[in-house]
Each structure stands twice: as structure tokens, then as C-alpha cells.
């Protein structure tokens, strides 16, 4: 046996290993930050989860090489969510975004077990040392869509298909109504509840019912594109929600209130990367770029487009607040005195319809 050759082999191996470990050293120090996302519905090509996933992709692109993102979609709110969130944390994900209200208690529970992981929960109200919360002022976009609806309606009736009467949804209905009546005091809004975030069949039925009740502008706070499609078929107008849904209703969709999470996700992830994250409690709107109107349909006259643009500017600058007194609920009770604007604490627990919305809400 040739001992010299063996020594050379051994030497080469040793050098190789040494070099290898050297190379691995710094690389390990820069191992990308693992970021997990938990989604309540399938991503699809429009809607709540789709917008969050767009945000994830934007963030991944902006921080290319520094982060590695993974998601689990269609996770039911409840016990399953806790398992998925825990699984992310247990697998070394140092930042986890949980993007649905029902993930609140599971997120808090898992966060207690993983104090070194940062959790960001969307649309809830519970925070902890390592749990931040974020949400967007969807109602600002709703108000602007309402202004357009007030100008475009012929029947003075708008139809609103909504999922559950929680504060966020009521803010949207009320802001839309206030926007509409700010330019058209005769306008009224009719609401149909679907009791489901995603049920295209029921959403479509609700849209058709509203149309038969005289509504000629529709919008929705549900997850599918069914309402925009129904309006397109019946030759009515509609406003999309979550995403720009114009490809489902090129004639019908006048605009949409779209959610933009990308810049926010990038900012938070950068903070966690740099080790400077100190907690998040963000409720961002037009000013922060979290809410944007989709491109306005050519059917909307130029003066209306200009009116909306100026109101958008005013909201962004803080000069216009959709919920400004005098404000009455639809039973005639004064909710806000003249000149006052509604504080975030009141907005967050909204449980009434403003004047102009037809119907009553379930009582506690």
C-alpha cells in the first residue's frame, strides 16, 4: 500500500474540512431569518389572504438573501392554528405573522412558550412582550368608495354584502354610508349578512337580492369575487374589497379598497433582523400606504375622480376624518357631537349603524 498517497489524501481531507468549516462559519452567522405566515384561507388570486401573500412576496424580494419565508394556508381558526403557529416557532422561525382575528388567543398562548420568537397578529387587540399587533384603517378606503357610489347611483340605494357584524365590518359599512351621504343625502345602504367570510354562492345570492331591492351599486366585506361578478352580469356598479377585482368585473368595478401589507412586513422584518424590534401596535391607513384605491374605472366622470382624489389627500393629511360629528345612529341617537372626530377607542368597539343604513343589528 502506498503510504505517501494515503497521507496526501488525509492531508487533503483535513484541509478540505478545515476550509469547509471556515466557509461555514460566517455563512452560519448570516443564516437567513426564517419568517412564517399563517393564512386563514387558500391564497387564490384575490382576497384577504392573497393580499397578505403579496405582502410576503414583496418583503421577501426587498430583503432577498436575508430572509426565508414559508406559509401555511387554509388554517382554521381554533386548535389547528395553535399547532401550526407552534410548529413554526419550534422549527426555528424567529418571526411569525398570524393573519386572522381568530388566531389571537392561539398566538398569545404559543408566544408564552417561545419568548425568543416575535409574533405579529393581524386585526386583534391582545399584545405581549413578543407579540405585536397590526391592522389597517379599511374604513378610509370605504369612505372614498362611498363618495363615488353617492355620485354614480341613480336609484340612491347601495347594497352591501357583509360577513359578520364585528367592529371592523361595521366601520366599513358606516364609512361607506357616510361617504355616500356626504355627496348624496338621499342615499341609503342595505346590508345582507352572509355569516361566512367565504361563501361565493351565498354572496352571489345576497348580491342578486340587493339588486332586486333596487340597489344599483354594490360592495362587499366577504372574501370572494362573487359580488363584483354578480354586478357585472346584471349591468350594475360595484366596489371590490381586499384586492383589485376589476378582471372579474371590468365594467362593474368602479374601484376597490385594497390592502397593502408589503412595506409594513418589510419594515417589521428589518427591525427583527437588526435586533431593534421593540413591539408593534400599528393601525395604518392611507397615510401609511396600507390602504390604496384600485385604479378608478373610466365610467366615473372626471370631476368625481378629482373630488375623490382631493378627499383622499385630505384623509392622508389628517384634515378629513370619515367619522366626524354630528353623527347619528340609524335609531336617531346622537353618537358624536358636532365637530368631534371619533377616537380609535370608540372606533374599535363600534356596534351601531349610522343614519342611512337600513336594518338593525343583533343586540347583546
Amino acid at each position, binding site marked *: 500500500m502506498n503510504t505517501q498517497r494515503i497521507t496526501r489524501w488525509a492531508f487533503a481531507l483535513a484541509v478540505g474540512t478545515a476550509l469547509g468549516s471556515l466557509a461555514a462559519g460566517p455563512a452560519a452567522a448570516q443564516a437567513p431569518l426564517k419568517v412564517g405566515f399563517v393564512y386563514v384561507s387558500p391564497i387564490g388570486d384575490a382576497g384577504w389572504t392573497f393580499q397578505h401573500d403579496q405582502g410576503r412576496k414583496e418583503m421577501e424580494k426587498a430583503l432577498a438573501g436575508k430572509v426565508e419565508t414559508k406559509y401555511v394556508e387554509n388554517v382554521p381558526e381554533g386548535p389547528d392554528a395553535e399547532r401550526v403557529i407552534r410548529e413554526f416557532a*419550534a422549527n426555528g422561525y424567529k418571526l411569525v405573522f398570524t393573519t386572522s382575528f381568530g388566531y389571537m388567543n392561539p398566538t398569545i398562548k404559543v408566544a408564552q412558550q417561545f419568548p425568543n420568537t416575535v409574533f405579529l397578529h393581524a386585526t386583534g387587540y391582545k399584545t405581549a412582550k413578543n407579540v405585536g399587533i397590526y391592522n389597517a384603517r379599511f374604513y378610509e378606503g370605504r369612505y372614498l368608495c362611498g363618495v363615488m357610489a353617492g355620485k354614480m347611483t341613480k336609484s340612491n340605494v347601495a347594497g352591501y354584502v357583509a360577513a359578520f357584524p364585528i367592529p371592523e365590518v361595521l366601520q366599513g359599512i358606516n364609512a361607506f354610508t357616510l361617504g355616500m351621504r356626504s355627496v348624496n343625502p338621499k342615499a341609503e345602504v342595505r346590508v345582507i349578512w352572509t355569516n361566512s367570510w367565504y361563501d361565493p354562492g351565498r354572496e352571489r345570492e345576497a348580491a342578486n337580492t340587493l339588486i332586486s331591492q333596487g340597489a344599483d351599486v354594490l360592495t362587499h366585506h366577504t372574501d370572494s369575487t362573487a359580488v363584483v361578478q354578480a354586478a357585472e352580469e346584471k349591468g350594475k356598479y360595484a366596489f371590490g374589497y381586499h384586492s383589485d377585482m376589476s378582471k372579474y368585473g371590468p365594467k362593474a368595478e368602479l374601484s376597490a379598497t385594497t390592502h397593502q401589507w408589503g412595506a409594513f412586513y418589510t419594515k417589521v422584518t428589518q427591525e427583527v433582523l437588526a435586533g431593534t424590534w421593540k413591539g408593534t401596535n400599528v393601525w395604518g391607513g392611507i397615510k401609511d400606504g396600507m390602504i390604496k384605491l384600485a385604479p378608478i374605472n373610466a365610467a366615473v366622470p372626471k370631476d368625481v375622480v378629482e373630488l375623490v382624489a382631493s378627499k383622499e389627500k385630505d384623509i392622508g393629511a389628517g384634515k378629513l376624518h370619515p367619522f366626524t360629528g354630528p353623527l347619528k345612529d340609524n335609531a336617531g341617537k346622537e353618537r358624536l357631537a358636532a365637530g368631534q372626530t371619533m377616537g380609535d377607542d370608540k372606533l374599535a368597539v363600534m356596534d351601531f349603524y349610522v343614519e342611512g343604513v337600513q336594518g338593525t343589528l343583533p343586540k347583546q
Partner: protein
Amino acid sequence: MQLKLETRAEPSRLMGWLAPLFAAVLTLIAGFILFSALGRNPVQAFYTFFVYPIRDLNGVAELLLKASPLMLIAVGLACGYRANVWNIGAEGQLTLGAIFAGGVALYFYNSESPLVLPLMIVAGAIGGMLWAAIPAFLRTRFNTSEILTSLMLVYVAVLLLSYLVHGPWRDPQGFNFPQSRQFTESALYPMLISGTRLNASFLLSIAAIAVGYLFLNRSFLGFQMRVAGQADAAARYAGFDARRMVWLGLLIGGATAGLAGVGEVAGPIGQLLPSVSPGYGFAAIIVAFVGRLHPVGILLASLLMSLLYLGGEAAQMGLNLPSAITGLFQGMLLFFLLGSDVFINYQLKLVRASAPAAVAPLGATS
């Protein structure tokens, strides 16, 4: 020439038992092809899907936690299905069980009495039974199809729960979000293994499997139900009361579904939410059939179904596969099982298209 399915004189009992195994093997083979076609290393994919989720104690605890309501409901449904009583509404009965148990928990909100949990368990079972009693009454009194009524009552139950958590039972400190207060310690099942989420409701599910076995295979009443299912006329000739079978079949299924509802709200959820089940009541129907309506089969089938859920999540995290993978595997399993059943009950024959073909030209098969 044409292919024809002919009824076998005597379906093989052995094959009946082996069919679920065949279905599992075929699912694995199809899964292998599927993973390869998706450009994933199939061995690694199988590891991620079927082994990784149960790699440690916590994983096993999660598997049992998820399987627990499935086996509990399925064994109750199987009692009815054996007697040809088709309760499709376990999801609604589960919801009523959760409502009744949740009502007890909220009523005794500040109580530390050790009796709160037992009371919730009893209330939950009663809630499920009451909901199942409606289709039982309609069937025995008006001969209404229990398939339709039990299914439709699911939606009523879910709306009832929705009303309660949006209205009277809403958490006063909950910012008007639709959820009840979180239950206190006395209204929650104790943990079985500390550090995991596996709680004592699992023992109840295992007990249900054992009781289900004794009832179905060793009791006279269970025998009566089987006869009623297999040979209606024989059962009537023997003087077995058909109405009693309907009532029993539905009430047993309602009780176990109600108990599963208690297991969820007094277990990993710990409060009432607008939705307390991701469709366990429907998934349990699949479990009951994959398990051949036999308690031991149901035990195994519920573990397999549970593993498919966990594996689907692991496949998303580890392999970047979409969530549809879970549904795909469940679908394949059921497809291959039903396919095997066809060949157990029928045989495939080549028939020459000669004179009789003129009589039945459009290839009418059985």
C-alpha cells in the same frame, strides 16, 4: 364487446377487511407518483408527510388530540349506520354539545367547583342528543328522510351558536368581537401529558371505542341494529322495533357528537367561538366508512385521517406544497377504498356484443 360489472354471489369477507389496506397501499403508490410529478424527492416527501409530524412526544400528542373527536363521533355514527340510520348531521350535534357545555361553563363562570366539568360533559351529551332527536322524531312520526333533516339542522346549529357569541354570550371585555369569555380552569379538561395539549377528553374517546365494540358486537341490542340494517324484513319478522332502532341510532350518534363538542370547547379552544369545529362531524363520516363501521377500524382510520391533516401542514412548511395536498390524499384514500369495494361486490366481465346488444344498445350495465 363491452365490459360489464356483475354482482358476485358471495362477496369475500377477507377481502372486505383487506380493502382498507389495499386502499392505503394504492394511496401511497399514487402519492409517490404525485410527489415525483411535483418535482419533490418522494422519499423525503413521504418522510415529511407521514413521519415528521409525529417525530416527538408533542407530535404524537397532537395526532391523538386531532384524532380524538373523529373517533368519538365516528363510533357513534357507526351504531346508526349499521342499522341503516343515516345521520349526516353530526357537525350540528357537535355544535349543540359545545353550546350546552359552554352555557354551563359561562353560567358557573366564577365557580371553582370540581363539578363544573362533569356537568358540562352531561350537558354536552344531552345537547347533542336533543339535536339528533329532531330528525329521529321526524323520521318515526312523518317518515322524513333523516339524511336531509339532520344535514339541514347543521346550518341551524351553526347559526344558533353564531347568534349566541354575537349576542347574549359575547365577552363583555372582548371589544365586541364574536367570542365568549375564556373558560376558567374548573371548566377545562385536565391535561394528560404536561407540555402538550392532549387532555382527558381523549380517555373518553378511547372509552367510547371500547363501549362501542361491546355494544355493537356483544349486545343483543347491537345485534338487533345490525339485523335491522342488513335485512329489514327479517328484523320485522323477528319482532324488532324499527322505530326504536331509528331513535337509538340517532341518539347514540348525537350523544357522541355532543361529547366531541365538549372536548373541543373544554379542551384546546377553551371558549365559545363562532365556529368550534373545522368539520369534524363530516370528516367522521369518512372515518366511519374507512373504518368499516367497526370500532377498531374506526380507531385506526381516525389516526390515519389525523395524520393526513398534520402531514398536509408539514408538507406546506417543509416542501412548499399547497394546502390542497391534504384534501388530495383524503380523496385518494376514499376513492381507492370505494374502488376496492366495487370489485369486492362485483366482478368485471367481458361481454360479447351479439344478439342481446341489439336489445340494450346503449351499453346499459348494472
